[in-house]
């Protein structure tokens, strides 16, 4: 093309660039009939993910934890024969044919018995079954994590889309609001909002419930996800296909939903596991500080913070829920890392404070 371009001036008669020459010599025009079927970005990503067996194993581990926690009522009913909130301070439990106190006379709970049945993983200070509470608590922790993650992703995507697409005044307002949220340390803001909901109530929330904790966590993390999404929308909105859609007369909402949003999908997918890991950790942290899940509800956070009060006599009350929490968060993180490598190697997420 360039050779015949009259505006090209002096270079009209020079040789075409080297790479065109090379391409012409080494690769004859491929026979259309032999072209492999097209490979979409997602099947490519799936191929890359399938090769990364470490992250698949950890993804499977997380699924296993989720399934175990969902089976909590079955375990409680058929194996342990004890509910998650059933206290048993004066009772005894049969360990290898010997009856032992669940909570000793000086208040030290029994450690793991390793016999399937009641108190498989020991008891806590109130004589409640640690294994049963671990599964029920896991359900609450995971529920909060999932709800908070969904909330963050939906709101952050909307904020990022609006700010990046309309730019100007809208962007200014949204970005400044996000900056204000971002300036507060995650735990201090979470504590404050949690306390406001607990003491005063806001809208439909009165007192601390699982949902209110999830809402607080989901809200706190919005800027961390909305900022990268906004940056990506800013780059996308000037691309040719968006111009084309605009010139076809499509409305703003339509362009955002059908042209830009599909291109954000891989970023959003990458953020989801990382946010989930963060949300589960934050729930535990807020609960430890007293602004998260409230007793008698179990969560991994409440179990650890109850257990810390019982150090050093009954350390299994800290260790067991703590290890479970680390395992769950680690498996989500490793899986999310593999997912990011597969989908979008350059995406970067900012993780939580402390």
């Amino acid at each position, binding site marked *: 093309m360039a050779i015949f371009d009259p505006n090209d001036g002096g270079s009209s008669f020079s040789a075409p660039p080297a790479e065109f020459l090379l391409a012409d010599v080494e690769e004859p025009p491929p026979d259309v009939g032999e072209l492999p079927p097209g490979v979409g970005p997602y099947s490519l990503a799936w191929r890359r993910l399938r090769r990364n067996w470490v992250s698949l194993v950890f993804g499977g581990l997380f699924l296993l934890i989720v399934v175990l926690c969902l089976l909590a009522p079955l375990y409680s009913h058929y194996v342990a024969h004890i509910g998650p909130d059933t206290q048993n301070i004066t009772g005894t439990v049969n360990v290898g044919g010997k009856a032992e106190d669940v909570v000793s006379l000086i208040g030290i709970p029994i450690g793991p018995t390793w016999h399937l049945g009641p108190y498989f993983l020991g008891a806590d200070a109130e004589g409640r079954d640690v294994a049963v509470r671990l599964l029920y608590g896991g359900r609450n922790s995971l529920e909060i994590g999932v709800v908070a993650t969904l909330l963050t992703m939906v709101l952050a995507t909307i904020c990022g889309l609006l700010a990046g697409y309309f730019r100007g005044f809208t962007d200014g307002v949204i970005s400044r609001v996000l900056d204000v949220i971002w300036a507060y340390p995650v735990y201090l803001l979470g504590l404050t909002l949690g306390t406001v909901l607990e003491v005063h109530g806001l809208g439909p929330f009165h007192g601390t419930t699982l949902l209110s904790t999830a809402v607080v966590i989901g809200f706190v993390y919005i800027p961390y996800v909305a900022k990268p999404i906004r940056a990506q929308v800013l780059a996308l909105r000037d691309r040719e296909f968006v111009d084309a859609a605009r010139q076809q007369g499509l409305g703003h909402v339509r362009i955002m939903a059908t042209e830009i949003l599909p291109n954000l999908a891989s970023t959003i997918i990458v953020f989801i596991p990382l946010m989930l890991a963060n949300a589960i950790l934050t729930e535990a942290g807020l609960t430890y500080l007293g602004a998260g899940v409230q007793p008698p509800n179990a969560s991994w956070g409440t179990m650890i913070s109850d257990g810390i009060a019982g150090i050093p006599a009954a350390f299994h009350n800290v260790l067991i829920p703590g290890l479970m929490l*680390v395992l769950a968060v680690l498996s989500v993180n490793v899986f999310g890392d593999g997912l990011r490598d597969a989908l979008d190697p350059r995406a970067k997420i900012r993780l939580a404070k402390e």
Partner: protein
Amino acid sequence: MARFLVRRLLVMIAMLFAISLVTFLLFIVALPNGNPAAMIAGRLANPAEVHLISVRYGFDKPIWVQYVKTMANIFEGKAYSYQSGFNVLAEIGAGFPTTLSLTLGAGIIWLLTSILVGTLAAIKAGRYTDRVLTVLSMVGVSMPVFFLGAVLIYFLGYQEGIIPLSGYVPITQSPTQWLWHLVAPWFTLSVLFIGIYSRILRSTILDTINDDFVRTARAKGLSERQVLVRHILRNSLIPILSLWGLDLAQVIGGGAILTESVYNLHGVGYLAYQAIGRIDTVTLMSVVMLTALAVVVLGALTEIVYAFLDPRIRLQ
């Protein structure tokens, strides 16, 4: 440059105002059921007493008068906790050395360690060392601070007796005791940040390692070590350092609340933690607001410093 400076400072002032307003509204309007006077007066007070307190504290004034007065009180150091009666600024000042010892020490540790770990992982990318370091940083990122603290206190404190169980000794009183009490908290606070920073540094180094200027440096005949330190690290450290400034501002202002409460270090974060327990709005509001303000000011400062160093930023 002057225009950039003025614009940046104006944005900063607007942010400071917005943060103070949001914090004030959140605490004063939402928190004590809209009637702080009743809260101060206690359960047995009669309406006349509540009214008296209301007038004395100025709760009957319009909201914007209260806002101005509260801000003036906080910044002049005349804000007193409704619960304990202590001067809030004095309490923050009392906790500040502890927090500063904890966070500055930890900040230096996590910065240096993550530079070492991240560089090592990038040089050995794809090899065994890199894999091990990646797994370790993943574990670090997934570790809840208070769980790590509890594990260290139990195994190293109760079982082995190597570290003290809790508490803080001022450096002026005994430097060795100070160090001994802070080793475990420093480690606990650093672990998460080492995980995050080393992974960011690893990927930025891998991004720059194939740049033209690195090839030029090698072609000039510089040793690998000089190429790494003078050329690659110098460029890759920029994002880490700006992150470090902001994170440090947050932990100094009370963001290290989990570490401080699990090790019983009576710093700024611990103050906030206790204030939550007794719903002490004035104290909590002051801590939260001063922290957010510190983050905004330090963020603006970092940006201005970078604009001096790198003219491309000014043009954006």
